[in-house]
């Protein structure tokens, strides 16, 4: 099998923070990563190929008529912020998921990353206490005070010690795989499915507040990528008039 990551040029990710979106309700994590790439000008650092990644290809998602072809999984890097983003545009195949997570962990260990942030979302109706605070976190670090100050609550484990986050995709599994080797945090946003762009902006806002690397990113500078143009479909067919 070929290498999981194929870098375009020599890139040293030592000390970087990696953000990984889990495929989950409303695709909020992927939308968040899209916003970060488009707004902060991340560059594509590597292509990622694994038999467990459900394939997809398309034209450049961040530039109209751009030269790039995007694939299902790519690594974006911004060296001055010491931040890397793993954008996932499809999902991980169920039967190959364990193999993918193990291979990903081995590759990430070689990078000597500082920390990993897993973004995910869950169904709004699962919340027993409905309030404005819809962000929760799971972490193997002592970040309670910091999270409390930005109104992100801790997600309690179930009685068997496992975390149960419905609709969050592979987030918990990936956390369990990586937590013994990295500083790791799962950021959960409870959302309803619909127009989830505001949820993505809210997630960027929370990331700004707890990731030092992102503190320079202002919400006023947020740009939507060109691939969001047809969120509600194309123009209506002329024949209906």
């Amino acid at each position, binding site marked *: *099998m*070929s290498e999981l990551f*194929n870098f375009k040029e020599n890139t040293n990710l030592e000390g970087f923070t990696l953000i990984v979106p889990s*495929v*989950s*309700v*409303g*695709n909020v994590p992927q939308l968040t990563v899209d916003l970060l790439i488009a707004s902060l000008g991340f560059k594509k650092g590597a*292509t*990622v*190929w*694994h*038999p*467990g*990644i*459900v*394939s*997809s*290809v*398309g*034209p*450049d*998602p961040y530039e*109209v*008529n751009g*030269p790039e*072809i995007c*694939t*299902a999984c790519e690594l974006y890097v911004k060296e001055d912020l010491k931040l890397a983003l793993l954008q996932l*545009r*499809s*999902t991980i*195949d*169920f*039967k*190959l*998921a*364990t*193999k993918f997570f193990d291979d990903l962990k081995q590759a990430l260990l070689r990078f000597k990353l500082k920390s990993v942030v897993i973004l995910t979302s869950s169904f709004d109706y699962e919340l027993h206490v409905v309030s404005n605070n819809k962000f929760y976190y799971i972490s193997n670090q002592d970040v309670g005070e910091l999270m409390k100050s930005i109104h992100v609550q801790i997600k309690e484990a179930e009685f068997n010690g496992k975390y*149960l986050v*419905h*609709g969050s*995709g*592979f987030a*918990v*599994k990936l956390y369990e795989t990586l937590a013994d080797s990295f500083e790791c945090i799962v950021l959960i946003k409870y959302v309803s*499915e619909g127009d989830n762009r505001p949820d993505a902006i809210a997630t960027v806002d929370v990331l700004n507040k707890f990731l030092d690397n992102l503190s320079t990113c202002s919400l006023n500078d947020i740009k939507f990528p*060109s*691939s*969001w*143009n*047809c969120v509600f*479909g*194309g*123009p*209506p*067919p*002329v*024949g*209906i008039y």
Partner: protein
Amino acid sequence: MVFGEIVEPSTRALIDDEFEEYPTYTKPQLIWEGNVGVPSNLNTLIFIEGNKLMKLFNALVLNSEMLYSSLNSENINIYNATNNTYIVSYVKKDLTTGEIIEELSQWLRKAKNIYAVVSEPISAYQNLNLSEKPETLIRKLSTDTADTFNCEKLESPNLVSGLGAGVVSYCIHSGLKSTLFVVYMDNSPLDSINTSPVVQLMKSLNLSVKAAASNLNPAASNLYL
């Protein structure tokens, strides 16, 4: 789509709560029938995917004598067409596209030209500047900037999945040149008008195309109702 019809996607997020219990992966044992191994004269490799395209290729390009190798358990056939060109036909079954690509990676590394032709419903094609869609529309995505196919590039935000996407993804990752053709077709029966762009594509791929095909849409039964 008719006026007033509401198309609701089931979910956009491919949520799978079964992920809580993950199986351990065991690589499938695949037994090829016919010739085994990559042919020495392999020059061009073409992947085709989708029932309509299969029907057209079977009628106009392929015949059973061309069959080089097959994986019947997984609906994969490889045909030896003219000009050192091999055609891989595929109908989705149990194997993931990633597993198929791994199985055929030696073929991909040896081929000088790699093409994939996939079909998608025309309703899935999104373009802000196109309110009237033709019956058949072909778009391409190519890693080869010097390719000479007379075909427009696929526009954002259209995404393509399946084996064709897997082939191009693998080629991008491995530094190989490849071109993906996406044939957007409506749901009407195949005829000489809506298949004409595909026939042109077959010719530009240097395939030997039969002059005309009969019985493209065989009747399911002889009953009128």
